[in-house]
């Protein structure tokens, strides 16, 4: 490349850069013609959590299409919901600037989303400052609804509630199958989510008379988790509980299988274990693992199966609990808008606070949807499922509590081949 050629290319490149600048500033959002309710969603659309951002977006789109086809928001003379998606890249600082953009630039009347607790914390603070309602659907970090904010509402359960339910399940099982459970091993990823879960375990497990003999944090995206597994094999706790995103969840499961580690039970805490790609990653190794979540494909709740079929037909794979929260969340939002009868943030906030839905599409998530004064959805519909092979195909079979368990399902307890 002769020197002159290089100079020309350098110049051309800079001109291109300046052009994007001009286009950027000039491009105002075009005015909207038909009556619309504009709202924003922040999700991780790039980076390692991208697959879960994608499923959140798909679930919302399906719900929005249904609501708009059914005539949109009647009290706003049939206004259609228009959703603007923003990529948080899983980075708190980007979450903040995207929240600023949605509020001040897109002038949305409310915000939903963001999947990761680490992003939810600062972006909800921005919404509170601008007094714009922020509907948190998935992040379960306890602190999100413990900061006395008025504009923040959360559909998801608190992380600690899951750990409480896990403890209740273990004590119930140990009595029912008289396999006394004394010791528990905790393996968790070293993130906000993991550390939050450990704090809850440390409170509930001793209360139920269970001794924690192993507390093993590991760095996310580890290159090898065999050392952790071998340590667990050495200490041999009765129960092993885990908190992982999907990549580490699969790695742990496979390595446990490799080294034939057999406690009374393996119990996951949603997240990676609930990810649809989990069991085609982990394969047969995931058999008989328990996981906790607020929804399962086979949970017997009204309209749950039909919605999941529609989702599968539309996108090619089934929903998970996070997708259901996003989907049901849209209906809670629609219901609030219906009652608010305006896109005025303050009115929407009041409508959210007074939410009390006992029928309709939200039934697939919870029989009753109600928020307490801190904006936390009160009765989290937690269920425990077990990976079982149903006529050859690995499925998540809801097994606890009975009233929501799959009809005719039975719990395999303890883990086959356990030495105890």
């Amino acid at each position, binding site marked *: *490349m002769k020197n002159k050629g*290089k100079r020309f290319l350098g110049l051309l490149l800079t001109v291109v850069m300046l052009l994007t600048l001009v286009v950027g500033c000039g491009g105002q959002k075009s005015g909207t013609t038909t009556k619309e309710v504009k709202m924003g969603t922040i999700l991780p659309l*790039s*980076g*390692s959590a*991208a*697959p879960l951002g*994608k499923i959140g977006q798909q679930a919302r789109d399906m719900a929005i299409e249904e609501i708009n086809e059914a005539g949109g928001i009647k009290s706003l003379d049939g206004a259609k919901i228009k959703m603007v998606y923003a990529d948080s890249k899983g980075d708190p600082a980007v979450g903040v600037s995207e929240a600023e953009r949605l509020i001040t630039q897109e002038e949305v009347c409310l915000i939903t989303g963001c999947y990761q607790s680490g992003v939810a914390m600062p972006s909800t603070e921005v919404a509170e400052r601008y007094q714009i309602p922020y509907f948190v659907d998935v992040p379960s970090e306890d602190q999100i609804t413990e900061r006395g904010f008025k504009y923040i509402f959360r559909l998801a359960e608190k992380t600690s509630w899951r750990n409480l339910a896990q403890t209740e399940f273990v004590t119930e099982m140990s009595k029912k199958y008289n396999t006394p459970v004394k010791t528990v091993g905790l393996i968790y990823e*070293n993130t906000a989510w993991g550390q939050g879960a450990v704090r809850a375990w440390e409170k509930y497990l001793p209360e139920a008379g269970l001794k924690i003999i192993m*507390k*093993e*944090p*590991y*760095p996310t*995206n*580890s*290159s*090898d*988790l*065999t*050392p*952790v597994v*071998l*340590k667990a*094999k*050495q200490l041999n706790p009765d129960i092993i509980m885990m908190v992982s995103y*999907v*990549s580490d969840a*699969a*790695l742990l499961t*496979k*390595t446990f*299988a*490799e*080294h*034939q580690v057999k406690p009374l039970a393996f119990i996951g805490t949603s997240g990676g274990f609930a990810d649809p*790609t989990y069991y085609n*990653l982990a*394969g*047969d*190794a995931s058999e008989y693992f328990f996981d906790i979540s607020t929804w399962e494909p086979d949970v017997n709740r009204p309209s749950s199966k039909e919605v999941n079929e529609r989702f599968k037909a539309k996108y090619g794979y089934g929903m998970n609990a996070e997708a259901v929260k996003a989907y049901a969340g849209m209906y809670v939002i629609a219901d609030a808008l219906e009652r608010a009868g305006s896109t005025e943030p303050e009115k929407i906030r009041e409508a959210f606070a007074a939410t009390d839905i006992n029928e309709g599409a939200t039934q697939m998530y919870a029989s009753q949807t109600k928020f307490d004064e801190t904006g936390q959805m009160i009765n989290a519909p937690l269920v425990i499922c077990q990976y079982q092979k149903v006529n050859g195909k690995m499925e998540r079979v809801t097994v606890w509590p009975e009233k929501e368990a799959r009809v005719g399902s039975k719990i395999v307890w303890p883990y086959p081949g356990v030495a105890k």
Partner: protein
Amino acid sequence: MGFLSVVANGLSMGAIYGLIALGLTLIFGIMKIINFAQGALLMLSMMISYWLWAATGLSPYILIIIVAPIMFVVGYLCERVLIKPVLDEQKDVREPVSVLLLTAALAIVLENLALMVFGADYVMAKTSFSDVTIAFGPVMVSAARFYGLMIALVVAGLFYLFLMYSQTGRNLRATGQDRNAASLMGIDITKTYAIAFGIGTALLAVAAVALIPFYYVHPSVGQVFMTKAFIVVVLGGLGSVPGALLGGIIIGLIESIAAQYMTATLTVILVYAVFLLVLFVKPSGIFGSPYEW
């Protein structure tokens, strides 16, 4: 009984780290640049190997014959198109610093290209030996990792022989020791650089094929192994092939054994501490020449 399995696991994972570091140490040894795109190129090799395995169903180890040449060409072109102009621009500068940045930018480009093309889902090649362990008496080690150990030893051995006894190998080493003297001896430096980068990337293809039976593939998987490869290379001695393999095994053993006595997160800090100790006490590493550093 458990301790021997811990050691066996450390050995096999360590050998695979060594295999990944082999390409990095070759490229530094010859071109005196640290290739920050090493992680992204490893990810690319894993992606190609996975999709070839998914399409053909052949055992990954046979796929080496297809993936390695592809990655050699990718590496060769990367050097020729991207790195050469920058190196020429800085030929009188002792430390070509902006080449490091070029490779870091290349890493971002490759990772996001993979995100666009292959999507963001985690995938893993489930072969017959994926979830199985081999038992040597009481010692149990995962079959896939053990085969990885075997491949690493064989490939490192072959590569060492190639470097020592083949003509291209001699050209590479000569260029590494003194670029100007080598060019006076009739060695085409630009071609040798491209070959060095090509081979460095082809070695990654071998590491990729060793990884996919037991490790997931995802656009951001490169970063997991990148910093570890840096630490292995400095520990073994920048530019030294046996150093890379031994450095890898040492790090693998530290990670595996230390994790039994402290939490996994603290072992990560321990590995960084070892790295800094080597850097400050003997920066030339175990095998590196003291004058080199």
